[in-house]
C-alpha cells in the first residue's frame, strides 16, 4: 500500500485544462503503457470469455489422472498440467482471471468511493471534520495493511465478499489523503475563488469545479491500487482466508495448498503465481504510463 501512496506523492496535483488530449498522445507513445494495456486487455478478454477459452470445467475432477502421484505436469492434453484433484490447471487459471478482476475492481471501488467521500469532506469542510477524519486515517495507516485486512476478515469471517471489503477498507486512507490534498490545492485556485465570489453554492463548486480537476491523480492511483488489490487478495487467499468453497479457482487460494506438493508438482505453485505477476504488472505499467502522461513534470521529456 505504501508504494502506491508514495508514488502518488510524486503526482503533481494540478492538471491544466486541455491536458487530456495531450496526455493521450503521450500515453500512446509510451511503450510500457502499451504493453500494460495489452496485458490488461488480454486479462479482461480472458476473464469475460473464460467459458469459451477454457477447454474444460475448472471444477471438474478427474482423480484417475493422479493415481500415479501428484501431479502430472504440462502435457499436450493439459497445457498447464493438472492439480491435486486432477482438475485442468489451464482452465482454472483462465477462470481465476474472473475472480481476480472482479475482486480487484470491487475492492478498489470500495476504497475509492469511501475515500473519495471522506477526503472531499475533510478537504472541503476543513476544521474539526478535517482533523477527525484525517486522524482516523492516520490511525488506519499505522496498522500495516495486510494485518488490518486480516483483522477485518477475522471480524467478518473468511470468504470472497469479505476479502473484497477488507482489502477495500485498507485502501480508504490513501484515497482520502489524495483527495483532500488535491482539494486543498484546488480550493485556492482562481476559478474556484471566482465561482465563489459570484455566489455559486459550495456543493456545486465541489461537484463541478474541484472534483473534476482532482480526478487525474485519482485515476492514476486507482490503476495502481488495482495492482495492490490483486496482490493483497492473493495474500489473504494464500493465508487461507479466501473463498469458503476450496474448489473456487481463485489464484491466491490455488496457491495455498501447493507448498505441500512443491517437490513433486512445482507447476501448481508457479502457474497461478505467474498469472498474478502478469496481471499486476499490467496495471502497474498502465498506472506508470498514466502518471507520466498526466504529470506536467514529465512533459517534453519522453
Amino acid at each position, binding site marked *: *500500500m*505504501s*508504494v502506491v501512496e*508514495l508514488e502518488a506523492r510524486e503526482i503533481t496535483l494540478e492538471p491544466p485544462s486541455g491536458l487530456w488530449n495531450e496526455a493521450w498522445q503521450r500515453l500512446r507513445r509510451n511503450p510500457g503503457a502499451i504493453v500494460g494495456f495489452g496485458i490488461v486487455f488480454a486479462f479482461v478478454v480472458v476473464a469475460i470469455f473464460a467459458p469459451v477459452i477454457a477447454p474444460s470445467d475448472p471444477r471438474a475432477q478427474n482423480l484417475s489422472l493422479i493415481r500415479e502421484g501428484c501431479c502430472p505436469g504440462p502435457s499436450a492434453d493439459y497445457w498447464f498440467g493438472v492439480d491435486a484433484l486432477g482438475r485442468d490447471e489451464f482452465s482454472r487459471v483462465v477462470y481465476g482471471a474472473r475472480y481476480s478482476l472482479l475482486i480487484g475492481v470491487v475492492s478498489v471501488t470500495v476504497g475509492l468511493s469511501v475515500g473519495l467521500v471522506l477526503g472531499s469532506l475533510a478537504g472541503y469542510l476543513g476544521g474539526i471534520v478535517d482533523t477527525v477524519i484525517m486522524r482516523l486515517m492516520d490511525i488506519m495507516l499505522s496498522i*500495516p495493511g495486510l494485518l488490518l485486512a*486480516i483483522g477485518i476478515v477475522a471480524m467478518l469471517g473468511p470468504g470472497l465478499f469479505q476479502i473484497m471489503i477488507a482489502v477495500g477498507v485498507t485502501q480508504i486512507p490513501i484515497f482520502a489523503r489524495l483527495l483532500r490534498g488535491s482539494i486543498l490545492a484546488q480550493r485556492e485556485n482562481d476559478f474556484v475563488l471566482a465561482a465563489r465570489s459570484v455566489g455559486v453554492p459550495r456543493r456545486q463548486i465541489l461537484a463541478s469545479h474541484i472534483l473534476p480537476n482532482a480526478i487525474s491523480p485519482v485515476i492514476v492511483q486507482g490503476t495502481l491500487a488495482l495492482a495492490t488489490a490483486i496482490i493483497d487478495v492473493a495474500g489473504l487467499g494464500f*493465508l487461507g482466508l479466501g473463498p469458503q468453497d476450496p474448489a473456487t479457482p481463485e489464484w491466491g487460494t490455488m496457491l495455498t495448498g501447493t507448498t505441500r506438493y512443491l517437490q513433486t508438482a*512445482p507447476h501448481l505453485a508457479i502457474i497461478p*503465481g505467474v498469472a498474478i*505477476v502478469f496481471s499486476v504488472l499490467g496495471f502497474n505499467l498502465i498506472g506508470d504510463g498514466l502518471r507520466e502522461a498526466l504529470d506536467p513534470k514529465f512533459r517534453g521529456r519522453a
Partner: protein
Amino acid sequence: MLRFVVRRLLLLIPILLGLSILVFLWIRALPGGPAEALLGERATPETVAAIERQYGLDEPVPVQYWRYVKTVTRGDFGDSTVSRRPVVEEFKQKFPATVELAVAAMLFSLLVGIPLGFFAAKKYGSFFDHASLVASLIGISIPVFFLAIILKYIFAVKLGWLPTVGRISVLIDVDHPTNFYVLDAILAGNWEAFVDTLKHLVLPAIALGSIPLAVIARITRAAVLDVQNEDYVRTARAKGVSPATVDRRHIFRNAMLPISTIIGLQTGLLLSGAVLTETVFAWPGIGTWLVDAIDARNFPVIQAGVLFISIVFVLVNLLVDISYALINPRIRYS
C-alpha cells in the same frame, strides 16, 4: 528542531489512543463477542457467562476500556491463552526475529537498490537503464509469498544450497541472550553458528527485501534524474568540479531525501510482507506469532501484537521524519 521532535511525539498520543480503542473495539465486534469467540464451538451460555464474569466483560464498555488502559500502562499485557506465558515475554522472543529479518531485508534492498537506481539514472536511456526499470517493475508486481516460494523451491529444495526453514540448525548449540541470533553467535564467538544463522537469513531476506528494492531503485533513479537538472548541479559542473565530486556531494546527497522518506514507508510494507514471508519460511517471528494468534483466537496476543507493531511503525516514521529534517537544510520546522 527540538520543538519539532516534541510536537511529533505529542502527536503520537492521539494515534496510540485511537489505535488502542480500535483494537479494543475490534475484539468486541467479533462474531458472538469475545467470550464466545474465546470458547469457540464448545461455548455454552453458562461458560460464556463465567468467562464474561472472569474478564469483567459484563461491565459497561467504557469501564472495561479504562481498566484495559490501566493494566496496559503498567506494562501488563496479560498471558497468552495458548502458552499461558506473559505476552510481553513471548514478544521479547519473537520481536528480535522479525527485526533481524526486516533489517537484513532492508539492508539488502538499500545496498542493491540505491546503486541500481543511481547507475540507471546516470546511464539514462541505456540498455542498463531499461533493464533495471523492467526488473524493478516486475519486482513490485510479484506477491512476496510467491517470490518466497519460488526462491525456496530453487535454492533450498532443488539446489540444496540454503536451509528451507527456521533460524538456526538444530545441532548448533549456542546461547541466545539477545534473541538476535546473528548477534548471539558473534557474542558467543561461535563462527559456525554465525555462518549458519546467516545462511538461514539469506532467502527470507531476499524475498522480503525485493519489493522495497524495486521501489528504492525506482525512486533513486527518479530522484537522481530530478537533481541532475537542478541549477546548483549545473553550476557546479560549470565551475569545473570533477564529476565524481558532483555525484557525491550534490547529486547523491540531495537524492537521499526522497530515499530516506521511502525507508519509513517501506517499514509498513516490510511488516506486512513479514507475515507472509515468515509463513513460508517458518520463521518464528511476530508475523507467524500474530497469524497463529488470530487462528487460535489468542486475544491478549492479538491485542498486544497489533499495538506493538503499530508503535514500531509509527516510531520508525518519526525517526525518518527527524532524519529528513536533519539531512535537508532547506526545511525548517516550526
